[in-house]
């Protein structure tokens, strides 16, 4: 089974994000880049499917700049076989990113394309399904369970109050939701093997960037809390405030 996994480098979720001087970008100086957590599920699922099939290759594809090779090698250390670095600027515009990823995949042999349901930075939830559209492939998003069937894949998705079970033929594009699996650690042997695995760099062909970020604004600081009083005596005043000011009662 040949699987392509689309991955993204994102800022470590513990990093403090500050707007850059231009007000449109994020300050990148002190950021530790990590593999987008939802993409970790996708890589893990690809490795499991490949292991179960007993043959095939897992190729990871990542768009971005200098931060990318390390992220690709993280996936290679987990067990992916090869990486493609689609070298181009990071962008909010999901369609242009999807196009540049498709350009890297098109013409190659694949049974399945996997990616995270979203990247934790822009939270667009868009690239995976756009890739499916551009390649004219069926797609199932937000998948929490995946099972290979004789003809394709049985997928479970979480919906409000229940589960939706769907089936799709292959090739298809699947986006991974939390719960799909528990991603493995890169083993030390895997880490040592990663640098010997092929990592190809190609230029991004994204076409026109249409959606642009015009401002990043930090959230206004929260208003300070107010202590109304202490003990039972304070309850009437609290109820009054909750009713009249907070309007939650």
């Amino acid at each position: 089974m040949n699987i392509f996994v689309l991955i993204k480098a994102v800022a470590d979720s513990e990093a403090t994000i500050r707007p850059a001087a231009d007000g449109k970008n994020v300050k990148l100086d002190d950021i530790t880049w990590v593999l987008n957590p939802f993409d970790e599920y996708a890589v893990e699922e690809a490795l499991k499917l490949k292991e179960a099939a007993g043959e095939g290759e897992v190729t990871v594809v990542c768009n971005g700049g200098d931060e990318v090779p390390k992220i690709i090698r993280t996936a290679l250390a987990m067990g992916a076989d090869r990486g493609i670095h689609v070298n181009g600027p990071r962008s909010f515009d999901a369609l242009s990113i999807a196009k540049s990823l498709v350009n890297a995949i098109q013409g190659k042999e694949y049974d399945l394309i996997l990616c995270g349901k979203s990247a934790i930075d822009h939270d667009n939830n868009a690239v995976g399904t756009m890739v499916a559209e551009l390649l004219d492939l069926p797609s199932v998003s937000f998948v929490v369970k995946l099972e290979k069937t004789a003809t394709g894949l049985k997928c479970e998705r979480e919906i409000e109050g229940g589960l939706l079970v769907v089936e799709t033929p292959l090739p298809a594009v699947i986006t991974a939701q939390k719960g799909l699996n528990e991603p493995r650690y890169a083993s030390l042997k895997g880490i040592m093997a990663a640098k010997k695995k092929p990592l190809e760099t190609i230029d991004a062909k994204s076409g026109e960037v249409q959606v642009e970020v015009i401002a990043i604004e930090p959230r206004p600081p929260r208003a300070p809390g107010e202590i109304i009083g202490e003990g039972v005596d304070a309850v009437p005043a609290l109820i009054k405030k909750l009713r009249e000011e907070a309007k939650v009662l």
Partner: protein
Amino acid sequence: MAYKALDYYLIEDLLTEEERMVRDTVREFVTDNLMPIIEECNRTARFPMELIPKAAGLGLLGAPYPEEYGCANLNAIAYGLINQELERGDSGLRSFVSVQTGLVMYPIFSYGTEEQKKYWLPKLASGEKIGCYGLTEPDFGSNPGGMLTRAEDKGDHYLLNGSKAWITNGTIADVAVVWAKLDGEVRGFLVEKGREGFEAPEIKNKFSLRASVTSDLIFQDVRIPKENILPGVKGLKGPLSCLTQARYGIAWGAMGAAMAVYDEVLSYGKSRIQFDRPIAGFQLVQNKLVWMATEITKGQLLVYRLAQLKDAKRMRPQHVSLAKRNNVGAALEIARVGRDILGANGISNEYQTFRHMNNLESVNTYEGTFDIHTLIIGEDLTGIAAYT
């Protein structure tokens, strides 16, 4: 609160991408798997056996040895970083890995027959088998050369008699590397669990290294097959060469414990208010924090250089003595000072500094006490031995 490792001198920049990945993987493994249970393990005096398969799956056992034996073939820096990260969690888990790697796999790898290597190393690397290392005896600690444990050549087998004390992993081990005198000369033997006359009762009620198994080994007319002797080494240099390996890891590990303490104490100092200001704002407390950060930075640089010497095959045992002595001594003192900054909270099991402090008492004693390393370095510098 997420752990922040002190790196005041940007040693990060000296590491390769693989070395960083190894460190980050082990750090994450410890955060996810050890930190949630270590307080309970320590309180109930339990070694977390359940972590062995995962640790082995990552490649943490026998990491420096070649791939043909199921190992990751890591360089000295990466191996050191593993020790640092494990001991950031607890000295007990680091001790387990040190013993398995440096004291059990190392002598089999260096002095064993090809059959012994092929049989034991992959099983020890995968965690399927656990090893222990028996050198210390009840009456011979710093002076192992005086050991009383003896092996007799009985023609088709050896007969082993004697006892060992304070042996990490003893009770849970499938195989013991036992050092005993054969015709007056120290030799290494592989003694499997279950051999008649061999017992390994656990030493209970320790104040230190509670999340680690420590045992006595007792040998009463134990028959050892001839093929279980390690043929490649004779004399005290056999066991001492293993100690060099384990001490190397300990020198890194101690800095991990010190970094854990520093991280806890710094964040405590910034949030604990007395006399209307954070205690970290008082000069006396700052003096302690600065001293801690300085000692950690020195210790980190020491082991980084030691690793370079090891990889270049220029490291001498005395170099390791200096780093073990300095780093464990500093870590222990850092833990004591850290405990003080935590005030009454410092004696509560909600904070880890006390656990590290207690553990480091053992680490300061085992693998050559602080003072014995002073004598080793002293002899190296002056050419005059001062042991007796």
